[in-house]
């Protein structure tokens, strides 16, 4: 049987996810910049109105999920490059995972408290 690129290890999938998540984040940031240009005097009321929409909450949550995954792949790469002591590598990876999950949960909490 011929092997397939997606059927083998994670490298290609992660490379693809990093690029797709980067595109998602770029689109989101461009959207926010356009909003700010259209509403130059944005204050609490406008921000509240913007993030009060369900779709904005969902889009922001998705972008933060992309950001967290993007950051995780990057940090994992850095750790496997530079940290050759196995226990320290695992410890740092664990800390980053916990930190990123905490950031994401905090983001959800903030978004849905609006």
């Amino acid at each position, binding site marked *: 049987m*011929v*092997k*397939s*690129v*997606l*059927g*083998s*290890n*994670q*490298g*290609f999938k*992660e*490379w*693809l996810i990093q690029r797709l998540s980067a595109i998602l984040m770029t689109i989101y940031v461009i959207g926010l910049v356009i909003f700010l240009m259209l509403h130059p005097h944005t204050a609490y009321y406008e921000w509240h109105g913007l993030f009060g929409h369900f779709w904005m909450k969902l889009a922001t949550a998705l972008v933060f999920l992309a950001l967290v995954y993007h950051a995780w792949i990057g940090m994992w*790469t850095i750790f*496997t*490059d*530079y940290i050759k002591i196995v226990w320290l590598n695992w410890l740092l990876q664990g800390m980053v995972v916990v930190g990123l999950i905490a950031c994401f949960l905090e983001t959800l909490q903030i978004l849905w408290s609006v």
Partner: protein
Amino acid sequence: MRFSIYRYNPEKDQKPYMQEYDIDVKKYNCHMVLDALMAIKNFMDETLTFRRSCREGVCGSDGMNMNGKNGLACTTHLSTLKEPIVLRPLPGLPVVRDLIVDMSQFYEQYDKVKPYLQNDKPAPAKERLQSPEERAKLDGLYECILCACCSTACPSFWWNPDKYIGPAGLLQAYRFIVDSRDTATETRLADLADPFSVFRCRGIMNCTDVCPKGLNPAKAISEIKLEMLEHTV
């Protein structure tokens, strides 16, 4: 002309050291770095050890680090280097002696990409033909002489020499992936799809910067990634 050359004989020396040599390059008719190394070995210090063979940039034996940049001693003109000319072995590989490194790890990575034509179709009576366009795709790939200048200039190869194929091996991998006569493309791409073999390339571009043959391994690596994408979508 003053040279500062890395010296290390594991049978005698506790640790490596740099040795200075002053050589009259006009007297010995030296044009290239290799000429100067030969003059030092022949007339000043016969213990100085380095590899060389063809002395014209074809065999890839005399890859070394000259004033901080990898290259071939035989094709690097002395006038392009500032004094003192600092010569060190290729970085990242174990030193056997002086400017000679152990290339085993480099060849193991080269071996992983199965650098030979694979074709499961019956062999034709004469030869497997290619169109001029198909043949042109191999230009810039087949010329690699495996001098290891690129791979040993790559930080990703320094950090993961056992897992990352390195630019030289990946250039060869792409040479067979893009070859119209090779039928193992899918398997070749799948074999490279792990997190280390090809995806440790961070686009640093040292490989392309130092290649003494003017090849572009960084482009070949990005082409491999695009091939993977095309075979997936």
